[in-house]
């Protein structure tokens, strides 16, 4: 009967001032908005898990994979051979912005408007810093090292050998290498110029071979997954600017719910950091 659904349950004090939830008692004693952002994040976690698992599966399906300590070893200012230094810096920038977000939420609970705005501004700066780092990393990979989503010049040796020619930077004629070492195929005049080498042991001893391109999936996976994460960071910065302006204007003071909107955006921002923990693990550490 229709009249059954209209019987009013006594309102709990949680939702008397909130028009969003009109189904009686609130589930899990949390507001509608907070629950929904949690379930959105859960679904988003599945999306990222799908991508990262695809990365793992493809990595296991080929014989060699570029070694991250070699691929990610440049640092702004012309430094080379600094394995993982730059990405560690990026991780710390994002972690720091996560901390400032926690502080903003805590100031919100105290209804301290100036505190919220101050910590939100610091969070925005952290987010922009992270995006700038990523922009530099991408530019370096795309323009200096010429890795694109279609071509991956980072190959890995499968046998020991000696180079028969140099690339003019790191590799000189006569340099030896061992199986498992990753190389970067030089690129000039619009094409990749693989170096020739002589195999020094194994069944193909004394054969002259050429460097081959690395697994193609690496470039696509790298740019797609870090790009998708960077896209999340960009959306996060947009939302942070939005709530920062709203908080500064005094909008959330009127709502008298302990700046709950800051808490919700905070959940999203921490999630972005959470995903980076795993992107960092899969791409750079393992």
């Amino acid at each position, binding site marked *: 009967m229709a009249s059954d659904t209209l019987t009013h349950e006594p309102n709990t004090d949680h939702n008397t001032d909130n028009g969003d939830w009109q189904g009686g008692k609130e589930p899990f004693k*949390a507001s509608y908005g907070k629950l929904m952002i949690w379930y959105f994040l859960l679904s988003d976690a599945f999306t990222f898990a799908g991508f990262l698992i695809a990365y793992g599966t493809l990595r*296991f399906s080929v014989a060699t994979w570029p070694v991250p*300590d070699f691929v990610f070893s440049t640092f702004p200012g012309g430094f080379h051979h600094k394995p993982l230094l730059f990405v560690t810096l990026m991780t710390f920038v994002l972690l*720091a912005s996560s901390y400032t*977000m926690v502080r903003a939420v*805590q100031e919100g609970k105290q209804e301290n408007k100036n505190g919220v705005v101050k910590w939100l501004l610091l969070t925005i700066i952290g987010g922009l810093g992270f995006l700038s780092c990523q922009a530099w990393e991408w530019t370096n990979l795309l323009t200096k090292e010429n890795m694109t989503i279609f071509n991956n010049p980072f190959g890995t040796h499968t046998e020991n050998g000696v180079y028969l020619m140099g690339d003019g930077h790191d590799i000189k004629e006569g340099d030896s290498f061992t199986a498992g070492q990753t190389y970067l195929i030089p690129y000039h005049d619009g094409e990749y110029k693989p170096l020739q080498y002589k195999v020094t042991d194994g069944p193909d001893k004394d054969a002259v071979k050429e460097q081959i391109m690395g697994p193609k999936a690496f470039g696509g996976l790298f740019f797609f997954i870090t790009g998708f994460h960077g896209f999340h960071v960009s959306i996060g910065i947009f939302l942070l600017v939005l709530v920062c302006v709203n908080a500064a204007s005094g909008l959330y003071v009127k709502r008298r719910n302990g700046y709950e909107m800051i808490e919700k955006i905070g959940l999203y921002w921490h999630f972005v950091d*959470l995903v980076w*923990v795993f992107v960092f*693990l899969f791409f750079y*550490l393992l």
Partner: protein
Amino acid sequence: MSSVSYEASKGIANKTILILGAITIIEVLIALAGKGYLIDGLHFPHMIMGLVMVILSAYKARLIMFEFMHLKYELPAFVKTVIIPTALLIWFIIALIVEGGYYFGSRQSVKNPVKTEIKK
């Protein structure tokens, strides 16, 4: 959240960020030391290194969810609705890594096909 005072929650946040930073540094040091970058000739087995880093990252994820995202202070039933679906991903990971190994075998047999002779 409401059960923790402002000062106490500030202390928890400070502690959590320090632990997160420390774990990140440890992870990077393991990754570099295990491949012989820090001490010449020192190498850790790849499997063990990977396992340690996965466990450390999972712990980092737990800290972010439970402390920064305040999951610890929500109702247990709600925590379960988030944790159980996420935990099911573990099987997804194991299954697809095994699948990746199978793809590898398939690729190898395409490159070096097993020649079968037909005897008349």
